[in-house]
């Protein structure tokens, strides 16, 4: 043996040039596999943890209940034992996955089942496949070397077999460039001891100076090879070290604190994305910010459906369409289609369901509408109720209405309105329209399988859950009306609206929990509504299908402004959500943590966006609009709608900050408006002011 003649240090960017320089006169070039040819999305221990969870799950199916951390501990012990056995047999400290799997099952008290052991091996290989991707640029380097006629081999220390490593390289598109491979588990010898290098030299019939080896690990790739006289290129890449350190740190933190499991998942997904584009477009970035929240919500819906024993899920329009599509794809990716309840789209709106839900046309009956939208003119009230204005206008005039467009300020003391309600003709006509609308809605619900199950889930973006209230109010007299569970992204609970056998659950926010932090979702509700909304118009009513009197279909509004919305900027947001979802679906089995675990991190990210938006984010919001299709009928835009004159000159100069804050509170997204002022620290000041107030406001 002689000392190595050359050891070069380089990073991945200069690897090609270094190889060109040092490969002259070499017959063979060897490569380390992991962290050289292939990169890992997760630390190696993470894959073993995921595999341990899989084993614990499979053992539970065989009636053996064991905690995954116990299963993981058993593996650690076994690995030590197998390495020691191999060393006693004259080899190095190494083991094989296929040898480990049956003994692992046995050590955890599982049955001696060959099929189970094979499924564990297959699962771990699948995890490895998902966890690895080719190092950027390395494929070109290999191709150049091949063009020059170099023989290329890989040499790796790993408990997978050589065939498994070949499969990983093939998946990464690198296998075609490599001529041969040597794997420690196949030969019982490792690079670390130097014996695998000696074996390679023997098999390849090489003198040490004829081999050039490329690797990143000083202990197994550099030192042992140098001791044998092999020239080595030591790859030291600062960016890669930084990336791996970040992953390792967050992975360690996730074991101690649930908060970090969401961060870890986001990091894994953001690492070398295949579908997500690197785009500076603000709308695309917004989509990437919303996507984890929506995916986590859909995963929570799957978990809740299981926990509540729901047999059917109806995704209420229009936000439901986005969630339904996500649900179907995620259920397939998580391989839980058999357990998950069947799902359908439920075209509904507050406007289409409010009339059927009414028992009587009275101030009391209209309370739910008037509470949110006061000062309604009679014309708008009739529109909200889907009652024909031409039919009720003469009756209104008879009751004393001078104009149907005058707002009714106090319905309880409005003489004409009271007379209108007291008119038997009005009540009779109302009842006829209500009953017809109720029958159409019932038929539509029947078509959607609403009455076929004991418990049905209604999935929607949320806030007060009015559509659920309307449906249950309308159908509660039917004997086959199921228990309805509303599953909402955010729930602003109103206790007085509760109906028997109707339950509501909020994921990201639920005001019943009384946690002010999560109520950040309501500070910019439109962003979630707009970018989960289906591209079709609002549901106006239900009507019989042409030629099929026993079937009904929803009648959809068609609005030019709304179509424009979806075609333009919103398209980028939806594209980003879809790209991120595809990224998630590809790596779903690799990701750890439940929807409940991810909630804290997702909320933290949403808090960043809502409370402290960047200037670009705050400005871009001005370009969006939202069409209100109930209560008020206009296009909502998001510019500042206060009066600067009233703020500046509406009282004492000392009261300007107070008047400004009061005006801000009436805006849709005060933090966005503040950010657009470009005043330093103004968002912080507003956040602290709100926090101080919230801290003193005790929930009921």
């Amino acid at each position, binding site marked *: 043996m002689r000392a190595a003649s050359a050891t070069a240090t380089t990073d991945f960017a200069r690897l090609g040039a270094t190889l060109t320089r040092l490969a002259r006169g070499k017959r063979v070039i060897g490569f380390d596999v992991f962290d050289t040819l292939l990169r890992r999305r997760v630390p190696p221990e993470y894959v073993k943890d995921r595999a341990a969870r899989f084993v614990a799950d499979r053992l539970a199916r065989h009636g053996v209940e064991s905690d995954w951390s116990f299963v993981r501990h058993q593996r650690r012990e076994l690995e030590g034992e197998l390495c020691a056995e191999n060393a006693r047999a004259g080899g190095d400290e190494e083991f094989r996955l296929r040898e480990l799997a049956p003994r692992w099952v046995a050590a955890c008290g599982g049955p001696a089942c060959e099929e189970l052991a094979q499924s564990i091996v297959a699962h771990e290989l699948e995890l490895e496949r998902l966890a690895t991707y080719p190092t950027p640029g390395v494929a070109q380097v290999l191709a150049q070397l091949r063009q020059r006629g170099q023989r290329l081999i890989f040499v790796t220390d790993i408990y997978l077999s050589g065939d498994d490593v070949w499969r990983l390289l093939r998946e990464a598109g690198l296998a075609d460039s490599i001529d041969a491979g040597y794997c420690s588990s196949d030969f019982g010898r490792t690079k670390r001891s130097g014996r695998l290098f000696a074996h390679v030299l023997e098999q390849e019939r090489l003198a040490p100076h004829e081999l050039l080896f490329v690797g990143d690990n000083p202990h197994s790739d550099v030192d042992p090879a140098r001791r044998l006289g092999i020239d080595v290129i030591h790859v030291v890449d600062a960016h890669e070290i930084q990336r791996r350190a970040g992953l390792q740190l967050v992975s360690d933190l996730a074991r101690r604190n649930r908060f970090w499991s969401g961060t870890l998942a986001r990091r894994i997904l953001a690492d070398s994305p295949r579908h997500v584009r690197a785009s500076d477009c603000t709308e695309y970035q917004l989509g990437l910010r919303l996507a984890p929240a929506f995916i986590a919500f859909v995963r929570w819906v799957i978990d809740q459906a299981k926990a509540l024993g729901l047999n059917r899920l109806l995704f209420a329009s229009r936000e439901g369409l986005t969630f339904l599509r996500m649900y179907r794809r995620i259920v397939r990716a998580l391989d839980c289609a058999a357990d998950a309840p069947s799902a359908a789209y439920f075209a509904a709106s507050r406007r289409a369901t409010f009339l059927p839900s009414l028992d009587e046309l009275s101030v009391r009956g209209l309370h739910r509408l008037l509470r949110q939208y006061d000062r309604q003119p009679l014309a708008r009230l009739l529109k909200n109720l889907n009652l024909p204005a031409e039919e009720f206008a003469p009756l209104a005039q008879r009751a004393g209405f001078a104009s149907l467009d005058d707002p009714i300020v106090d319905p309880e003391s409005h003489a004409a309105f009271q007379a209108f309600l007291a008119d038997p003709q009005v009540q009779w006509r109302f009842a006829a329209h209500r009953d017809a609308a109720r029958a159409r809605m019932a038929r539509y619900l029947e078509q959607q399988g609403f009455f076929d199950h004991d418990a049905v889930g209604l999935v929607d973006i949320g806030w007060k859950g009015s559509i659920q209230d309307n449906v249950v109010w309308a159908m509660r007299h039917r004997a086959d009306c199921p228990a309805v569970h509303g599953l909402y992204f955010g729930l602003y609970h109103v206790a007085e609206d509760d109906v028997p056998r109707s339950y509501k659950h909020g994921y990201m926010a639920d005001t019943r929990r009384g946690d002010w932090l999560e109520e950040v979702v309501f500070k910019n509700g439109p962003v979630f509504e707009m970018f989960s909304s289906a591209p079709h118009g609002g549901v106006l009513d239900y009507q019989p299908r042409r030629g099929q009197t026993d079937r009904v279909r929803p009648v959809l509004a068609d609005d030019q402004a709304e179509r424009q919305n979806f075609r333009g900027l919103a398209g980028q947001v939806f594209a980003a959500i879809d790209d991120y979802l595809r990224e998630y679906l590809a790596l779903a089995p690799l990701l750890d943590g439940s929807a409940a675990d991810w909630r*804290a991190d997702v909320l933290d990210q949403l808090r960043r966006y809502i*409370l402290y938006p960047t200037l670009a984010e705050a400005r871009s919001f001005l370009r969006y609009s939202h069409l209100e299709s109930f209560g008020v009928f206009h296009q909502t835009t998001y510019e500042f709608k206060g009066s600067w004159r009233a703020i500046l000159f509406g009282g004492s100069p000392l009261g300007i900050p107070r008047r400004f804050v009061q005006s801000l509170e009436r805006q849709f997204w005060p933090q966005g408006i503040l950010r657009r002022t470009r005043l330093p620290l103004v968002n912080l000041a507003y956040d602290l002011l709100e926090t101080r107030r919230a*801290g003193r406001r005790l929930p009921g």
Partner: protein
Amino acid sequence: MSTRSESRDHAPATPRERLAPLLWRRLSLWMYRRSERFGRHRSRAAPNDLLPVPALVDALTVYFLDRLPARTTARIGIEGCRRRARALVSVLTFGHALVRPAWLLARGAIRLARRRGERAAVPYFLRRAPIENVQVTLADRVQLCGFEFDGASIRTYWRRVTPVPHAVQIFVHLYPPGPQEMPFRGAPQRVCKDHFPRCPLAEWPRGRVYEDVVELCDVPAGDYRVDIGMIDVVRLERFEDRLTGRTAVDLGWIRLRAPEVAASEPAQAKGVAIARG
């Protein structure tokens, strides 16, 4: 054969965290977690409902690991980043220790100035309630100290407990006995005397008693049960009496007499309070 060779190595798909928003969020979080509201939330919440919060040192370590130049990170490693995070937390703690006395002094000065201001006479406000026959606190914010009925109007005395940022209305509802119709407008409902206080609740000086007067000249003669309370007109929520869970204070029955009867009697006898419910 599926291939993943098209994987790209570029900047993270989503922008990295910036230090300022990270620290500001932590600051408001720290403030909230010290509040009475969070204390109540913690005492009521199931363990899984409490949002986990990362230690500031951990959050800053991750931040430094991501944001420091790659060469520096590669050199100092995770431990080096953690040391920097600890140093920053020490600086922040020290800063907090310095700022706190200044803050306490400033707050004391503000309170003193307010008290001086409050000594001056303020319209609609009294130093103390002339009668204290109710003593109900609504939503832990406003106390109804007492009420008087002089036959033509109801006077109520209120005291602010904690500041109320929103616009608030005082509601006074008069209910006739039994289900018979009210003798006006043919409406079966209550008589509503809802109104905004003459001085917005947000501006009520602390320690003073607000005197509210509701004239009942336009209400027909008869017996009425009186409910009174406050409603947050922004949230459309009534203020609740935490002890009883009720959202209105029942002031009992009053009797309003017809004007012609009342005209022949002394002013005090125009109407009488009958009993409190």
